[in-house]
């Protein structure tokens, strides 16, 4: 079949151009939405409808944020130190959950005996809320980085296991049979068919795990910390500085969004074969 490649390329260029325009349009709409939200907030506070001591205006929060970049009071650390402390806790818990949880889930999903052996234990541990582990964790390992990372680990671990387990269970039997008739051994089929076909679900699990890890941060830093965004929020409450609390919240939100975007581009790369027909 002869293909009119020139024509196709022209069409693709056209489509790309339209795509770019649409992207700019959607970005502008999103930015306008945020701006309008902040504007209403500012007006409500400045008009005196809400007590400014309770809810500071966005401009005040921006000031505090800029101030915190270079200044230590009231919590004793500049903002960057808090951010790094929190990232260290959250990411060490998150990555250990990935490293242990995903292989475990894949393993359980593929080998029936592993499933029968491990699943009951897992099902017992799964419903326990991560926060409930805190007292035990403190007894075991005190209040250092390891203790906090362990609590994060519990929240991130469960979605990693469940999604990898379900993902690999959903592997198409036809694709397994194809490999079998070619003479592939079970382990070869596991890594050539099982793992790639589980990947979309695994990534969905990682996404949930990342969200859990980052949002449990404040709870983990309640354990007693001397730095961290959760700690900053705690301290802001103690000294009755809602602007500090909100700065902490905003930074947590922003970093969460950045991490999520990083994960998205990683996912886009690994699942580049997944396109709609």
């Amino acid at each position, binding site marked *: 079949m002869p293909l009119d490649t020139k024509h196709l390329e022209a069409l693709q260029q056209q489509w790309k151009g339209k795509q770019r325009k649409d992207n700019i349009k959607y970005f502008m709409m999103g930015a306008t939405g945020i701006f309008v939200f902040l504007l209403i907030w500012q007006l409500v506070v400045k008009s005196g409808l809400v007590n400014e001591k309770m809810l500071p205006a966005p401009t005040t929060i921006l000031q505090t944020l800029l101030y915190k970049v270079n200044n230590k009071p009231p919590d004793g650390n500049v903002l960057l130190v808090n951010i790094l402390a929190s990232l260290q806790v959250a990411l060490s818990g998150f990555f250990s959950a990935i490293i242990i949880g995903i292989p475990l889930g894949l393993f359980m999903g593929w080998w029936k005996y592993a499933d029968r052996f491990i699943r009951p234990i897992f099902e017992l541990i799964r419903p326990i809320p991560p926060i409930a582990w805190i007292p035990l964790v403190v007894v075991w390992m005190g209040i250092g980085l390891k203790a906090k990372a362990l609590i994060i680990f519990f929240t991130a671990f469960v979605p990693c296991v469940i999604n990898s387990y379900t993902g690999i269970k959903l592997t198409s039997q036809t694709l397994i049979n194809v490999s079998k008739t*070619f*003479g592939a051994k079970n382990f070869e089929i596991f890594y*050539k068919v099982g793992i790639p*076909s589980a990947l979309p679900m695994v990534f969905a699990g990682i996404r949930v795990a990342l969200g859990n890890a980052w949002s449990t941060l404040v709870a983990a830093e309640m354990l007693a910390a001397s730095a961290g965004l959760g700690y900053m929020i705690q301290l802001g409450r103690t000294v009755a500085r809602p602007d500090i609390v909100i700065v902490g919240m905003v930074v947590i939100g922003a970093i969460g969004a950045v991490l999520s975007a990083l994960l998205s581009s990683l996912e886009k790369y690994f699942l580049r*074969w997944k396109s709609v027909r």
Partner: protein
Amino acid sequence: MAEINKDRPVKISVQNLTKRFGDLLVLDNMTFDIHENEFVCVVGPTGCGKTTFLNCLTRIYHPTEGDLLIDGTPADPAKHNISFVFQEPSALPWLTVEENIAYGLKIKKLPKDQIEQRVNQILDLMGLQTFRKSYPGELSVSAEQRIIIGRSFAMQPDLLLMDEPYGQMDVKVRFYLEDEVIRLWKELGSTIIFIIHNIEEAVYLAERIIILSNKPANIKEELIIDLPRPRNIADPKFIEYRNYITDKIKWW
């Protein structure tokens, strides 16, 4: 029986093949030979056990009794080259077209240069060179089915099994792909068992047709189709064959 097979050695020998699932007898003592480079179509009423029959041949199921010999030794996917084109689309969606075609060859651990050479040959034969770096999801369903057929032929299989691979396509695409299969079969000299519903297509493709009985499946009749190729579906002889087979699989 078959005069056309005199000069061709026996490639596959099915002996007393029987398969039971519990009390349910699905395949009942089937015995037949297939010669090298033969194109055999298997037809039979719906639900007669055609797919079970194929699954026994590929060792996805193990036969209850009897055996399948390839070149005189019991069939073993690890040792023999068996290729299967399934009813459902079965390209691996995370591999590109060329990686899909190389998939079986890599499992068989062929040397790299040989894999490359065979993949190129198949891409040329099937006109897929332009799409070698595409993913199956980016192509049409019929193109995906062509990838799978290419993947099977790339194995240069001792036995190529096809289970209604065109079930979901319209008539035009079916005849187009069937001509493709005939071309590949002639070019590469494979031995093919093709399970098919459509009797017209069976007569169009086959050198020999095996007609199965209702469940439990047994061989009702074997029929040599000695029409010249390319076959003309309007030829009176063609229609005669078609009507004869239709009569044979009627169970009502």
